Every structure is written in C-alpha cells, then in structure tokens.
C-alpha cells in the first residue's frame, strides 16, 4: 500500500477512536461552543473596541475568537496531550515496530485535527449566523478564511507535536500544555479583546507569539474591511511558527516513553 493510502486509512481509525473517547470529543467540541454561549450571553449586546480603534459587536467578535480557540484546543492542546498519552501507553513504540512509516502515523494525526478544525470553525460560524447575526464569509473572504484555518491548524498541530518531547510523562501533560498556552490565550484576545488601552508590553509580547496573529488573520479573513483589515503578514507569522514547530518535532520527537 502506498504511503498516501496508509495515511488515509490511519486517519479513518484515528477518527473512529476519537469519537469514541468521550473526554476528547467533549473538550474539543462542546467546550468552545459553551464558552461562545457564555461570552455572547453575558457580553453579547455591547460593542468592543480593538487595538486598531475599530468597534466590533461583541457576539460577532466571540464567534471569531471562539473559532480560533477551538482550533488551538483541537490542534495544540488535545494533540499534545493525546500523543503524550499514546507515547506513555506504548502505542507509539508498537507502531514504530510495524512497517507503517512514522510520517504516515503522525501525518494522519495532524490531518485528522485539521479536519476537526474545519468542522469546528463551520460549527462556530453556523452558530454565530443562527443566533448572533454574525455574517458568513463569501467569495474571496471564504477562500482566505479556509487558508487561515488550514495554516493555523497545521501550525498549531506542529507546535503541539514539538512540545511532546518536553513532557516527561502523561500525568504532566495537561498542566504543561496548559501552562504554555493559557497565558497566550489571555493576552491575545481569545477570551476578551485586547483594547487600545492595553500596556505596550502586552502588545509586544502577543506580537511575538502566533496566537494573536491567528486571531487577527481570522477576524480579517472572516469579516474583512471595513471591520477588520486582513494581512498576509499575520498568516506568515503563524506559518513561521509552524515551520519551527515542525523542525523541532522532527529533531526531538520521541516514540518511546521517557521513563
């Protein structure tokens, strides 16, 4: 069987196991929607002012930020934790002893979370359109949105894989993964918009890391001007982080339990 066929087959099994794991499915799919409902319900009627001074309807803003949150949760948080658990359970080591190429195994995991990301973004968008009057992208905006989701999900999946060698065991996986991502989510406008009054160092810090760039790219591609300007530079920063993550993952990835 060709590597492509093997990868496709592996994706099917990955998907089957994913939906049978209630915790993974819940945290990936229910969590972001729950947050979206909470934020939109509590804050939905007002407007927010972004760094660029533009005003946004809050529920519209949260449709976009929760879509990004769901992509990062699926690709980075859940993939890093899930792969660490599989490593500690010896599943990776067993797979390593079979003819399946390692790239087909990991490729399938990455492509699977990318597919989940598209599904999540579609659900968030549909939810926003149904309940919060959020606009759906069409034409060029739609194509740009798809590119942003693909680049964002692939990059965060690569970063998730790159993190696993730094996690000593499965018990340590959730705290380590959350410690690396939660502060960034807070300073990057996922849970609340970072307005023009935010201190400069917050802005500088969030500028270095990929989360805010993904939020901005998403707002820009999803809503576009005049609400929010789309910039390929944001997509570029996210992609650059993805390339660094991939290089680190290739260099340091471990197929065997660390202990």
């Amino acid at each position, binding site marked *: 069987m060709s590597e492509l066929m093997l990868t496709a087959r592996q994706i099917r*099994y990955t998907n089957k196991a994913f939906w049978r794991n209630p915790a993974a499915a819940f945290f990936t799919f229910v969590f972001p929607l729950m947050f979206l409902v909470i934020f939109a319900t509590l804050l939905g009627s007002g407007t927010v002012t972004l760094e660029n001074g533009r005003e946004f309807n809050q529920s519209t803003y949260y449709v976009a930020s929760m879509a990004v949150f769901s992509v990062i949760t699926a690709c980075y948080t859940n993939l890093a934790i899930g792969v660490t658990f599989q490593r500690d359970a010896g599943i990776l080591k067993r797979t390593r002893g079979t*003819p399946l190429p390692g790239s087909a195994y990991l490729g399938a995991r990455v492509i699977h979370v990318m597919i989940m990301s598209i599904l999540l973004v579609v659900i968030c968008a549909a939810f926003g359109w149904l309940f919060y009057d959020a606009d759906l992208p069409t034409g060029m905006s739609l194509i740009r949105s798809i590119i942003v989701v693909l680049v964002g999900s692939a990059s965060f999946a690569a970063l998730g894989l790159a993190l696993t060698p730094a996690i000593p065991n499965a018990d340590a996986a959730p705290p380590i993964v959350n410690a690396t991502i939660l502060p960034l989510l807070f300073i990057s406008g996922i849970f609340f918009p970072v307005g023009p009054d935010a201190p400069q160092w917050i802005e500088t810090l969030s500028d270095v890391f990929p989360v805010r760039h993904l939020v901005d790219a998403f707002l820009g591609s999803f809503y576009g001007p005049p609400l929010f300007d789309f910039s390929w530079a944001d997509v570029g920063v996210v992609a650059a982080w993805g390339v660094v993550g991939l290089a680190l993952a290739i260099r340091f990835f471990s197929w065997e339990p660390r202990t």
Partner: protein
Amino acid sequence: MSDRAIEVTGLRKTYGDLEAVAGIDLAVDVGEVFALLGPNGAGKTTTVEILEGYRQRTAGEVSVLGFDPAGRERALRERVGIVLQSTGVDPYLTVRETVALYAGYYPSPRDVDEVVELVGLAEKGDTRVLKLSGGQQRRLDVAIALAGDAELLFLDEPTTGFDPGARRNAWEIVSNLSSIGKTVFLTTHYMDEAQHLANRVAVIAHGTIVAEGPPGSLAGRDRMRTSIRFRLPPGAPEPDRTAHRLPDGGYELRADQEETTKLVHDLTAWALESGFVLDALEVTPPSLEDVYLELTASEDVTA
C-alpha cells in the same frame, strides 16, 4: 539466501559507564524457536530491542533476515512481528478493529477473524480494548504480532499474566508457528516455557551469554544428578547414611542419571522388606530452572 534468520557477533551496548550487553554472539536458524533467558537487568531486553531496531548498538555485527536492523528499513519490518514487553493499543477500538488496523500495515496479512480466533478472543471480537482483562490484552498483543504473517517473530515475555490455560494455548500457537516454518525469538522468565517451546536456549547474565544449547542438555543438565525424595512414617528405621535429611523432615538421595533406576529399586526393596511405606516418593531429574539458577547465581557471586 542464508538459512540463518539472526546472526549476532560481538554485540556490545553501553549506556555511559554501564555495559548492558558486553559482547555476545548468537545465531538463530530459520524455523527455529530460540529462547533467551535471564534475570531482570541481564541485558535481555536491550539485546532484543537492538534486534528489533529500537536501539542502536555500540559495537558488533547484527544481521536480521539479512538486514541490519539499525537501518530500520521498511522491507525488514514487513517481515517481522513483535510482541513488546509492555505496550498499549488504542483503548477505544474493538479487538477486531485493532487487529485489522495492524494487519493492514503488512503486504500480505493473515485473515483478521482467523487471528482473533487463534488467540482465543473470538467472542471478544467486538469488545473495546478498554474492557479487556490484562491477560486478554496480552493475547491481543500476540494477535497483533501474528496479524502481518511475518516470518520472524520477537516475543518478549509473551505469556506474562496468563492463566495456565491461556499459557498452554499460547504455547500451542508458538508450536504451530514453528511447524509452518516461522522463526521465533523468545525471551521468558518461565523455565517451563523455554523447556516446552525452545529448540535452543541461551542464558544471559550481566550482559554475557553464560550458557547455550538445547534445553535438555543446557550446561550439562543431562549429566546433573537426579534427586530422589521421600518421607518415612513414624517408627521406621533410619535409612542408610547416603540419604540426607531435609529441613521438612523428609530425606533426599542424589544419583547420577544412569544409577537412578537401581537406586529407586534398592530403596523400594528396602522399604518393602522393612514393612513400611515411603510417603511422598518423588524422582526429579534436574530441571532447567536448577540449571538456570545455578548459572545466574554463580554469575552474581563472581561479578
């Protein structure tokens, strides 16, 4: 084509100052069942994992089916099935799905239902791995290793955690494998397992092979003395002084194997003449375990 499945010369593996494998030679023929015995930390798993391609060796020559396993070539992995000492599978797939998943990695796999049946998991076929007992999961490990119809199988302590029935069943599977020409490289803690399955046994201790040969004659086992044990009822006369007294109150005689028949005859004749019975009479040839304990214990002392 050589008829050697595995050939190892001067294999060494060091971790820092620790020499886990200190220069061993091994040769396993095609179709043979070879057992590597040794206590924990003797270098058993390190050796197997070098052969399987998981570890890089420090020095020496290794050939597995004509390949150097360190190269991790797919063409080699397609011909090898592995049961690792501790591994998992996805808990959310069923038994049949799991076997099918792994079978699909190989160019000409065995029939999934047949393999599931073979390891005795037929009625668990649609059960998720999550719900299997430890012994059943181990049988699934064996099923996965068989799924690809590989010609060489590495079984690292394959029956640990099996009940006696499941162990007999696993032995039968391994015997069947060798009868259809598969080569099996086994490590085990169970002497009866090596005795029952292996054509040849090597004992490893402190990273070196201390004995190698067929289980029946390993390290002169065929020349070791038989033990004859018995108990005497109260009031019976003392046996002659060649029998020594055991801590549990019984007696033991040692005899060369060719003398055993005569000695048992003399002993029972003496008992009959004196008019009492010999309780718990046992005639035990030296077991592989005796040989093994002697070999690995003496290593400990000299180390």
